[in-house]
C-alpha cells in the first residue's frame, strides 16, 4: 500500500505547490501590484476619513501574507465580493454565466476532438499517400487562419444577407432545443474549424508513433485485420495521451475560446463577463476568474494523473 501511496502523495504535494504558485501570481498581478481601488469605490469628493476607511476595508494597510491569505480564503469559500461594474455578487455572476459557456462550448469541443482523432487516424493509416498529404495540408492551412478571421467569416457566411442568412447574427435567446441549435451552430462550426488543424496534427503524430511500435507490427504479422489493428490496438493504446490532451485543453478551450466567441457574438457567458471585466478593470471579477480557472486547471491535471494511472498500470 505504501508503494502505491507514495507517488500519489508526491503528486498531491506538487499539485498543492502549483496552487500556491497560480494563486500567488494572480494575487501579485491583480491585488498587490494592481491599481488602487479606492477611487473606483468612492467618488472624487470624498473626505480624508472616508478614503482612510475604504482603504482600510480594502486591506491596503495589511501586510502581504495576511492579504494573500484573505485572497485564498475568498477563493476557497467562494466568497468573492461584488462586481465593481454591476454590483452583482461575483458568485451569482459565475453561477449565471458558467452554465451558458459550457453548453456553448461543449459541442464544438467534443466534435473538434472527435474529428481530430478520426482524421488523425485516417491520415496516420495512409501515411505518405495522397489523402494523408491532403489532410496534412488542410491542417496547416487551418492552423494558419486566425480565430478572429474565422469568426468574422463564418458570421458573414452563415448569418448575413451577404451569405446564407440562416442563423442569428449575434446574441443568445435560448429557450429550448430549436433555439439552442439556432444560436449554437455558428460558434460550434467556428470552434471546430479553428481546432481541427491542431487536433489532427497532434493525433496524427501520436498514431504514427503508435503504429510503428513492435506490438502493432507483430499483430499485423499475425494477420489481424486493419480495422482491428486501428480500433483495438492503436486507439486503445493511445488512450493515455488522448485523455491527457483532452483534459488539459478543457480550461484553455473553454475559457480562452469562450472569451473570444462570447465577446464576438455577444453571448452572456463567463467569457463575455471576463471581457467586460477586462475592459472596465473590474478587479473582483477578474481576480476570481483568473484564480479559480488556474486552480481548476491544477485540479484537472491531478485528476488526469489519477485516471491515467488507472488506465495504464505501467505508470505506477
Amino acid at each position, binding site marked *: 500500500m505504501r508503494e502505491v501511496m507514495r507517488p500519489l502523495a508526491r503528486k498531491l504535494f*506538487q499539485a498543492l*505547490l*502549483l496552487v500556491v*504558485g*497560480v494563486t500567488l*501570481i*494572480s494575487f*501579485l*498581478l*491583480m491585488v498587490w*501590484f*494592481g*491599481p488602487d481601488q479606492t477611487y473606483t469605490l468612492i467618488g472624487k469628493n470624498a473626505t480624508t476619513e472616508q478614503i482612510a476607511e475604504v482603504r482600510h476595508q480594502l486591506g491596503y494597510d495589511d501586510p502581504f501574507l495576511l492579504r494573500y491569505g484573505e485572497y485564498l480564503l475568498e477563493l476557497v469559500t467562494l466568497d468573492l465580493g461584488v462586481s465593481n461594474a454591476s454590483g452583482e455578487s461575483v458568485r451569482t455572476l459565475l453561477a449565471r454565466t458558467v452554465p451558458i459557456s459550457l453548453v456553448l462550448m461543449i459541442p464544438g469541443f467534443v466534435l473538434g476532438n472527435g474529428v481530430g482523432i478520426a482524421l488523425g487516424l485516417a491520415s496516420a493509416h495512409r501515411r505518405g499517400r495522397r489523402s494523408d498529404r491532403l489532410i496534412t495540408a488542410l491542417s*496547416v*492551412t487551418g*492552423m*494558419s*487562419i*486566425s*480565430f*478572429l*478571421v474565422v469568426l*468574422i*467569416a463564418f*458570421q*458573414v457566411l452563415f448569418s*448575413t444577407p*451577404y451569405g446564407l442568412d440562416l442563423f442569428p*447574427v449575434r446574441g443568445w435567446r435560448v429557450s429550448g432545443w430549436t433555439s439552442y441549435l439556432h444560436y449554437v451552430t455558428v460558434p460550434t462550426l467556428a470552434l471546430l474549424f479553428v481546432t481541427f488543424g491542431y487536433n489532427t496534427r497532434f493525433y496524427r*503524430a501520436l498514431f*504514427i508513433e503508435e503504429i510503428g511500435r513492435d506490438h502493432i507490427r507483430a499483430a499485423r504479422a499475425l494477420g489481424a485485420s486493419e480495422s482491428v489493428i486501428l480500433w483495438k490496438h492503436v486507439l486503445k493504446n493511445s488512450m493515455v495521451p488522448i485523455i491527457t490532451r483532452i483534459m488539459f485543453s478543457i*480550461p*484553455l478551450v473553454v*475559457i*480562452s475560446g469562450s*472569451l*473570444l466567441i462570447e*465577446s*464576438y457574438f455577444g453571448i452572456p457567458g463567463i467569457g463575455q463577463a*471576463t*471581457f467586460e*471585466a*477586462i*475592459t472596465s*478593470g473590474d*478587479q473582483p471579477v*477578474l481576480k476570481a*476568474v*483568473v484564480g479559480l*480557472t*488556474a486552480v481548476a*486547471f*491544477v485540479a484537472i*491535471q491531478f485528476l488526469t494523473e489519477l485516471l491515467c494511472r488507472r488506465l495504464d498500470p505501467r505508470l505506477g
Partner: protein
Amino acid sequence: MGTRRTWAHLKGDRAGLVGLLIVLFFLGVAATVWLGWLGQGWSEASGGRWLTPNADHWFGTNLLGQDIFARSVYSVRTAFEIGLVVALVSTALGAGIGALAGWYADSWIDGSVMWLKGVLDAIPFYLFVAAIAYALQGQWWAMHLAMIATFWTTTARLVRAEAMKLRSHDYVRAAQAMGLTDMRIIWRHVLPNTVHILLVQATIAFVAAIKTEVILSFLGIGVQDGVSWGLMLAESTQEVLAGHFANFIAASAMLFLLVLGFNLLSDAMQDALDPRGGGA
C-alpha cells in the same frame, strides 16, 4: 547536422521553400516601411469612407476614410516588430533557463524552474495577459511581456531535456575534467548543440506572437497605438455587417499568408534540422 546537409534538405522541400520565399517577401515589405518608403500615410483620413479600390487607394478606404493599403502594409512592420521581439527574447530566455535546469537536473534550480513552468502553464493564456494588462494599466509592452513570460516554457522544456542528455556525453565530461566552469561548458558546449531546437522554437513563437496580437488587439489589450492587422480586423467587425469587406479581406489575407509562410518554414526546418535525419 552539417549546415550544408541541412540546406540540401531544405532545398528539396518545396513547401519549405515556398514558406521561406513568403517570409522573405514580407521581410522586404517590412523593410520598405522601416525605410519610410511605403505605408507612411496609414493614419490620415485621405478619402471618403468605404471607397472601393481605385488608383489612389489600391485596397479602398475604411470607415474613417483611411487608406487600407497603407494600413495593411504598415501592419507588416508592426507584425515583425512584435514577432521578432517576442520570438528572440522568449527563445533566448527559454534556452538559458532550460540549459540551467537541465544541467543542474534534480537540484533546487531545476525544481523551481519546473514549478514556475507548471504555474505559468496552468493559467489560461488570455486571462494571464488580461491580468498583466490590468496590473500595468495599459502600458504598450504589457502584451509583449505577457507573451514572453509564457512562451519561454516550451523552449525551456525541450532545451532542458537536451542538456540532460548532453551532460553525460564524453566530450562534456572531458571539458569538466579539464576544469572548465559550469557556465563556460553550458555556453560553449551545451547551448550550441540546441540550435536546432532554438531555430524551430523561434519560428513557432513568431507565429504565435502575431496570431496572439490579433486576438489581444480585438479584446482591447493588444496594440495600444499604431496600426496592426488585429486592430484592422477589430474595425472590420463593424464594417462587414454593412457589407464592406475590403478591410477584412486585406488584413486577414496578409495575416494568413505570413502565418502560413512561417508554418511551412517551421515544418521544413523541423525536418531538415532533426538530428535523427529522417523527416516525419
